[in-house]
């Protein structure tokens, strides 16, 4: 219903790539994000932050996207860190147990700090 209302902004912070996602992440828009992360991984960028500050909604299919590359990225010494989630979005991640699998941080600075450790 809100398929057009999903956008991804790319930023670089040193060797860290930040994807700022906005709008609705559901079964229709999930492939966009999947290919965006896939491209970064192919380019050899393994330190990825996904910023959720402007994400309004995430569906089960949207959550699945983060599972696709996490293993590959970690094997290569990188990670996908999730930052600045709205409470409602966090609840969805939390119910599924994602905080036990991913580092979910308050903001990009925290994520960068974690990468540099």
């Amino acid at each position, binding site marked *: 219903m809100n398929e057009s209302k999903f956008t991804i902004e790319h930023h670089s912070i040193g060797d860290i790539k930040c994807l700022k996602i906005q709008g609705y992440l559901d*079964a229709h828009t999930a492939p966009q994000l999947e290919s965006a992360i896939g491209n970064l991984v192919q380019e050899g960028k393994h330190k990825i932050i996904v910023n959720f500050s402007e994400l309004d909604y995430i569906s*089960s299919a949207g*959550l699945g996207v983060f*599972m696709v590359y996490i293993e590959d990225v970690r094997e290569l010494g990188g990670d996908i860190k999730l930052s600045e989630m709205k409470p409602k979005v966090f609840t969805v991640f939390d*119910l*599924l*147990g994602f905080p036990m699998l991913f580092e979910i941080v308050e903001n990009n600075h925290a994520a960068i700090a974690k990468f540099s450790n």
Partner: protein
Amino acid sequence: MSSELVNDKIRNNFTLFYLAAFIALALKIILDAIFVLADRAPASFGLISSSILAISFVSGILIGRFGQVSTSIDRHRAGNAGSLILDGGGRILTITLVGLLGGILLMLIFSQSSSQDPSGMFESVIMNLVGAAFHYIAIETILFIYFALYIRRHEKTKKFCKILAVGILVIYILDLLGKLAQEANNPLAGISAFVLCIMLLLTIGRTKWIALLTKQEKKKLVWQSALGFFIFTFFSVDCFTDHITQLPKSIDFFLYGSSSIVGVAMMFSAVYSARLFFPALVALPTASAVDRRNSEVSSLTHLNRIIAETIDFDMLIENLTQRSLEVSRATSAWCELYSPTGERSIASLKYINKEQIDWLYSFAAFESLVSKSTGTNLIESFEEYEELAPLASYQKPIARSLIVVPLYEGLSKIGALIVLNTQSFGFENDDMNVLSSFGDNISVALKNARLIRESISHERIQHEIQVARQIQNKLLPQKIPVISGYDIAPYSLPATEVGGDYYDVITLQDGKIAIFMGDVSGKGVPAAFYMAELKGVVLALAQEVRGARDFLCKINATMFGNIEKQTYITLSCVVIEPDSPKISLARAGHMPFLVKQHGGVSVVTPRGLGIGLAKSEVFDTLLEEYFLDLSVGDACFLFTDGLSERQNSQDKDFGYEPILDILRSPSAESAQMIIKEVMKAVEYHAGSFPQHDDMTCLAFIYRGKGVDNSKRNLDHFEESLMIKPEYDSQTS
């Protein structure tokens, strides 16, 4: 059927008239022969009876033919007057020519006497036959002109036809009177005939149909009308003047004084021929251009009809190629289509084969010519282009000139029509124009065909999804086992799309009952497949698990690595024991349990990951199991996010709170009641806002040891499975 019967009847009546006519003719021939044999001039009564027989013959033929012609006029539309007149005229011409030559020949051989009357019986028979034949010819010509005029069906024309008939009769009577009065020259008949001819000329006003004839037909009309003019003129002059041939003698012998009538008929025909000759001659030089325009128009019309009707893409392309060849001066043509990746495929070809096309494309110049044409492109001669010249240098080249018509769908070029001519300057500009308009039309057609094809495939997919949904519904429990001490009610309301909601009530090896509520991530057919897989895994494990946590761990161990990385399943499991208040709960990433216990309600969220997200070591370590001790009347509510995330028009989720309120209220006395209240509340919340996700939920209540709810439950089960509750209509 009835109209055929009527036609048959009419045809039979015509046959009767002909029969009567021929009997009259036979009688007349015999009668005249007898008079000649008796070697004396027939007495007046003999002459009269002979004349009556002749008139009977003429009338019979006239009425019979008139009837036939009238019915055929009714059947024909005025639109194709041209070809009808042409065909009819040709026939009349042939008959007249044969009659004329045959008659002259017969009269030359058999009639030596110069007197009006036959010298022998044999001559009398011949003269009668020839006379009858010419009356027939006269009738045919008159009727033909009548037909040619009448096809317009104007009031004026009808009036003239009547005048024509009366006029002919008047001429005959005048002529007859003149002859009876032994006047050598009777000007009256001639003058009347002349007047009628002028009228005829004026009446044949519309000759527009000549313009619509093809070049071939026009040529035919020119020589037909020219020949007709000479023959008819000769014959009418013969009849009116001092008889050049012996023919009028026979005509007069057959019916006294009738040569003038036949003459008038011939004069009419001559006038009519002359009237047609000039427009036909004038139209001749422009005929091929008109033909061409006509064929373009009809090709475009035809193509447009095909475009409107055809859903068969291949047939459309085939037709396009064929029509292009017909309408242009091409010697060969093909149509190629490009795939989204730019590969070329030949969709249809005429008078050229694939090897020849490949050969053409082996020239880079040709390749770039076709690929770079953005609009219709005419190459008049390959020899004028240095790069293309080699193509034309062969003894028998495939092409020396060509037209490329790119085919578009929207803005993207999806193919090209290429027509070739083996001659240099084989095409003209109007070939290019008409093919260009073909290109425009076909673009519309291609779009239509694609839309139709897509809608058909969409329909098929819809049907398959329907089947998938039916199968999926079969995977949900058709019957809930009766559990002593517990009251259980499930409810599932599917959305339009196939989803991955799952619930189940399974009896384990040790007699305990496992209640599942789950949801496969994503939607559609993949989700439905994983749900089916989950059901299989659950059934397979049912005989070896102990407890809710164990069950979920084993499901994850089985499924992790066997499903796609981005797919996971959230699943809650409650294990209960008949007649026991002790229950255990575990949650693999699913929605929390809503529990009413000891007078209070709570959201119970044991820790746990979704199934398929992590390997056993991680998953098992993180999965918690809660043990609860229920009191009589305590309840538990399981659901999928389709329920809690059911939105209304203000994008507000339904949430858990309304459900907790219902659990809290005293009205929640049975599992069925809880379900009903929850569904009522969610309907009230969402209003008419469309439902995007399956909504599935299940409630159970502990009734106390030994309380059998089987009877009560059975009343509700059938209606509770997949069926919308009956209070639907009240809440909106």
